[in-house]
């Protein structure tokens, strides 16, 4: 069909010499010869072969492309570890206010008081939520926050004249944790998980020595389980002089219920694009602020937003660069301010009670969904990896399904697409065979959860009769299974022009 064939053209393939969308503003200064302003040897020989297209074509092209995406405003998106919760529309409105969107990052602080105050208030709120007294908003995403955290740990130890070489991460850790450790110049040491899904305390104790700079932990863990021995873990880590790092990807489970600071964590990162509703944008932008304890504070990145009372008692917000022990910058300017606006609006909309309700319902929804799946008899093939009350997400293992029904977790995931549902995270955490990590979030209705449970049950029923349907799924998507191996073997990473 013509419409479909056409949909696969790139914007470059739609280009026709002479078409244009851009109209240049009038040249209103005396024109000088180009060669005079920029000698030929400085100039490029061939102009960049950008597409030549009109505005209507650009709009239609990307509009059509958009329809080849599944999105959160279309259907259920229980992608574990990602907190695909509703993105309130108000946030886009307030982020777009010219006073925010058109504010230059080097605007002088006295002329950007609203922005600095917003950042200060957000720092304050995040500090309260984390239970730690200091916040830097600078990191650009979760893994950037992790990097900040490990670099802070290094600075902290160096300041004490200590040289440590290792960082502990549980075997359930998200890939960014070990990758961060390497990037921060440490060696990764893995800590095991016990039969209940908790950190193996004995293993931890065995590995926690004075070469260890830090333990990075996610709590609830990537298994969706709260670490009940967290206080003991903190004591072990602190006893050897290491820091305890909190990967905040799963904060959505505990907001207003308990706080990483109270658990003994020294450094926490937030994923504002998860718990605090920054839209995920197809893979960013996000923001990964960090909260830290007093002993880590001196090393925080520069600049910090501070609140100062002028002699005339007028309050002023300032950017403090005068931080001699700071690790320095992790990026340009003041961080992803547009994200801060959204997260701040969210915190104000919900308030203390609303934030707690978020976590309560997130956990309620997850446990309910697990119960509903069980009620559908799904656990025969897709048992929960750990038979416990879960937090905001849970892990199923597709191992029996693979064995009995001859369909893999991947097949189930692909078949879900045919039902208009985004699959959960698959094959993570690595610990669980054929894992499915399901995070419904608090913004989904009971009806949606019920429907998901019956769809999964239906797919399993169908597989019993004919596993081929799932194995060759999806069947109704714009494209079907793609040759990923081929793509990696002979990479085509740009349009040949």
């Amino acid at each position, binding site marked *: 069909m013509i419409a479909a064939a056409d949909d696969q053209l790139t914007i470059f393939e739609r280009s026709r010499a002479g078409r*244009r969308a851009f109209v240049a503003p009038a040249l209103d200064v005396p024109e000088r010869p180009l060669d005079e302003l920029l000698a030929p040897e400085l100039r490029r020989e061939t102009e960049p072969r*950008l597409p030549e297209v009109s505005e209507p074509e650009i709009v239609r092209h990307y509009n059509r492309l958009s329809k080849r*995406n599944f999105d959160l405003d279309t259907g259920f998106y229980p992608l574990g570890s990602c907190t695909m919760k509703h993105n309130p529309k108000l946030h886009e409105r307030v982020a777009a*206010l010219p006073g925010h969107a058109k504010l230059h990052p080097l605007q002088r602080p006295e002329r950007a008081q609203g922005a600095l105050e917003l950042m200060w208030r957000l720092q304050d709120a995040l500090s309260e939520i984390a239970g730690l007294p200091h916040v830097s908003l600078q990191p650009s995403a979760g893994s950037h926050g992790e990097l900040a955290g490990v670099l802070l740990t290094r600075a902290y130890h160096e300041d004490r004249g200590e040289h440590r070489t290792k960082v502990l991460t549980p075997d359930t850790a998200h890939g960014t944790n070990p990758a961060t450790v390497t990037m921060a110049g440490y060696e990764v040491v893995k800590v095991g998980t016990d039969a209940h899904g908790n950190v193996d305390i004995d293993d931890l104790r065995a590995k926690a020595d004075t070469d260890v700079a830090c333990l990075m932990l996610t709590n609830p863990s990537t298994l969706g389980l709260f670490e009940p021995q967290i206080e003991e873990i903190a004591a072990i880590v602190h006893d050897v002089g290491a820091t305890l790092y909190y990967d905040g990807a799963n904060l959505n489970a505990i907001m207003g219920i308990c706080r990483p600071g109270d658990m003994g964590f020294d450094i926490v990162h937030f994923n504002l694009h998860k718990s605090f509703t920054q839209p*995920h*944008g197809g893979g960013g932008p996000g923001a990964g602020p960090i909260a830290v304890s007093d002993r880590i504070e001196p090393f925080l990145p520069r600049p910090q937003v501070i609140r100062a009372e002028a002699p005339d008692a007028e309050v002023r917000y300032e950017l403090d660069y005068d931080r001699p022990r700071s690790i320095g910058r992790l990026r340009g300017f003041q961080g992803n301010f547009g994200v801060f606006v959204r997260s701040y609006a969210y915190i104000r909309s919900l308030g203390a009670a609303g934030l707690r309700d978020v976590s309560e319902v997130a956990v309620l929804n997850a446990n309910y969904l697990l119960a509903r799946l069980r009620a559908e008899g799904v656990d025969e093939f897709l048992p929960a990896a750990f038979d416990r009350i879960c937090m905001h997400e849970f892990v199923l293992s597709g191992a029996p399904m693979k064995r009995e029904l001859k369909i893999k977790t991947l097949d189930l995931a692909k078949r879900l697409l045919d039902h208009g549902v985004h699959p959960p995270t698959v094959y993570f955490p690595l610990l669980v065979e054929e894992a499915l990590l399901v995070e419904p979030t608090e913004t989904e209705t009971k009806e949606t959860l019920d429907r998901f449970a019956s769809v999964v049950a239906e797919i399993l029923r169908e597989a019993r009769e004919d596993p081929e349907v799932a194995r060759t799924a999806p069947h109704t998507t714009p494209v079907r299974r793609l040759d990923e191996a081929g793509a990696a073997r002979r990479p085509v990473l740009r349009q040949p022009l």
Partner: protein
Amino acid sequence: MSSYTSATDADRREMLAAIGVDSIDALFADIPESLRLSAPLDLGPGLSEQEVYDELRALAARNFSTEDEVSFVGAGMYDHYVPALIDSITSRSEFLTPYTPYQPEVSQGGLQAMFEYQTAICELTGLPVSNASVYEGPSAVAAAGYVAKHTNGRRKFVISRGVHPHSRETLRTHAHAWGMEVVEAPLKDGVTVLPDLDDDVSAVIVQQPNFLGAVEDLEGLSDAAHAAGALSICAGDPLPLALLRSPGECGVDIAVGEGQTLGNRLDFGGPSFGFFATTQALLRRIPGRISGETRDVEGKRGFVLTLQTREQHIRREKATSNICTAQALNALAGVIYLSWLGRRGIVELTELMLQRTAYARGRLAELDGVEPLHDRPVVREFALALDAPVEAVMARCLQEGINPGYPLGGDYPEHENGLLVAITERRTRAEIDRLVEVLGAAVAAERGRTLQEVGA
């Protein structure tokens, strides 16, 4: 219940019954009692939508945006016009709300846009490979450094003092953890003078045009790096590349930079995106997502995230970077912007800026007490040396609604009264003329004052 959660009281009762517990509290049994908060967080009550809107509007109103003053501030982010069609496309929930395209069958929109973006970046940089985005400019410089470190294992970066101060500082933050040294190459007459490069040098990092607006001899710098067996890394803003010899043409190994100027708003500094382009040789060391073309089982064209064995979710501690969530939506804005400009438009736009910048530079240099800080060719930004205290001059200009630029003294003590002036297509001749008038008067007034004080 907030307006974002949907569980009614009846829902909650039914759900708890299905779970088999009798309170929500019971679901938190794993949390030690001692850790459970007994009081609400100190965050105050929730507000209605209009109240939050009003509060945020009041905050925003206390900022001077580029709509509230005539701004000549650049220094890494620039007040370009963002065409309306970008908002209209990027605000579509299909682009705004999904996550990284792990399920390519239902993510072709995002994946194809990444592929198109990569193509456009390759065109601009003259390099054959681009990833799908990194966080932003300065951290992209660090990311390039990380590739260099892994490529040749050497222990030193030579970075030009013409590279954005934030980039230099960011590199230093990282290099320290890598046990690497960072050496700054000074500027002379506005451009980089490299020290002798020994075989400890992992990479030479310059910026084109540099922070003071000067066009560097990129090829010469690149050649020097290569002669020492180091990688050549070029940072910079992609827009001037429409006119300048591209990093690829100049032999650069890695081109990185801040993408804000490509259709992203200022947002007080973020979110924007960083671009990262390189040679075929370094392909498997790139950080971040890359989209690649392939076919589906029916032979239909499609796109997938590819070369994932570089990435943290596969390779964990052996990954080429820890980056996960990057800046997909901002990069999408970038490729839409480049399509909007198009092959001719990008040249027209850049030439317009070139002309207006030349006009502004010429007129300002005529003022008493104002000298060009260097005489090198520039595209959209140039540096001045004022013969008056720059802060006092700034204050006078701001009073007239003109923000004349970025004072250089903080980052370059050697240019205590330096001022960096950016001229985008948003700045008309009338506004430039007004700048000339206001800045001229301010400098004159401050020189008068200084003379008086000296006299007194």
